[in-house]
């Protein structure tokens, strides 16, 4: 539920921004398409970030027991 809303909200914001920019600059559907893709990327980014947040809050037990902290951030 949480990951789903993060993803969809970003796509909606991206597409909405593109649509408004199109209305303003009168540039056909192009900006909306571009911003839709940007929104998709932002949605994936949101999902990855909140999943990382969840993992930090409650680390997976086996990985945490074997190797405490040997990869990525901090």
């Amino acid at each position, binding site marked *: *539920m*949480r990951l789903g*809303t*993060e993803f*969809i*909200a*970003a796509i*909606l*914001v*991206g597409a909405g*921004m593109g649509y408004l920019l199109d209305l303003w600059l009168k540039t056909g559907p192009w900006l909306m398409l571009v*911003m839709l893709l*940007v*929104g998709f*990327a*932002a*949605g994936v*980014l*949101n999902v990855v970030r909140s999943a990382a*947040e969840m993992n930090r809050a409650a680390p997976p037990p086996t990985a945490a027991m074997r190797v405490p902290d040997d990869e990525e951030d901090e």
Partner: protein
Amino acid sequence: MADPNKVDPIHQFQITDIVSFGEGGVSFTNSALFMVLSVGVIALYLLLSTQKRSLVPNRVQLISEMLYEFVAKMVSDSAGKAGMKFFPFVFSLFMFVLVANMFGMIPFFFTFTSHIIITFALALLVFVVVIVYGIYKNGLKFFKLFVPSGVPGYVLPIVVPIEVVSFLSRPISLSVRLFANILAGHITLKVFAGFIVTLGGLGFLGWLGALLPLVMTVAITALEFLVAALQAYVFAVLTSMYINDAIHPSH
């Protein structure tokens, strides 16, 4: 519901005027009434329960202290010492959403968190506070939030719009999450409860069949209490995480 064959699960969300001032003007609705009630209950409870300030707290005072410590730990964990400046803000939001959701679980009470305009207003408040405080505290450095460190210059034209859209999507995901959980839960509850009445109209066998949705309704009611508390918690946690971004704008 007078007619057992007509179950209307949306009816509970209807906004009605209690007192209206002038034609089409401002009016005091049932939604506003329950907002006032929630604030009143929170203020009364916290004031009365902490009045004695006994060193060994009684049960009522203990609950207030636990709520305080719970939110204080949440804020300092995600936003650090500097974030405790925002403790009153996060605590108010948490209590408001929590009491609103819990009020919604009482029959015949209106659940104002099931209206997106209210959750969106709350989320927008968080959003504006984060932007204004971030710019006030960090000046132009606040916009470093959109430029992750360690990214080579030639991919910045792609990364910055993605970060901006990701930032702008926060109030929407924050408000939609709370609103959708509460709305869906209440509709599910109403639909299953409606099955009991409809099946009951079929005579003895119908009553036997109605046992199933009855069990479901009891179970979903318990689940809804969980969701009500959990969504208030999630709202407050995300608020303190966004405030953390305003205080320390680099990723």
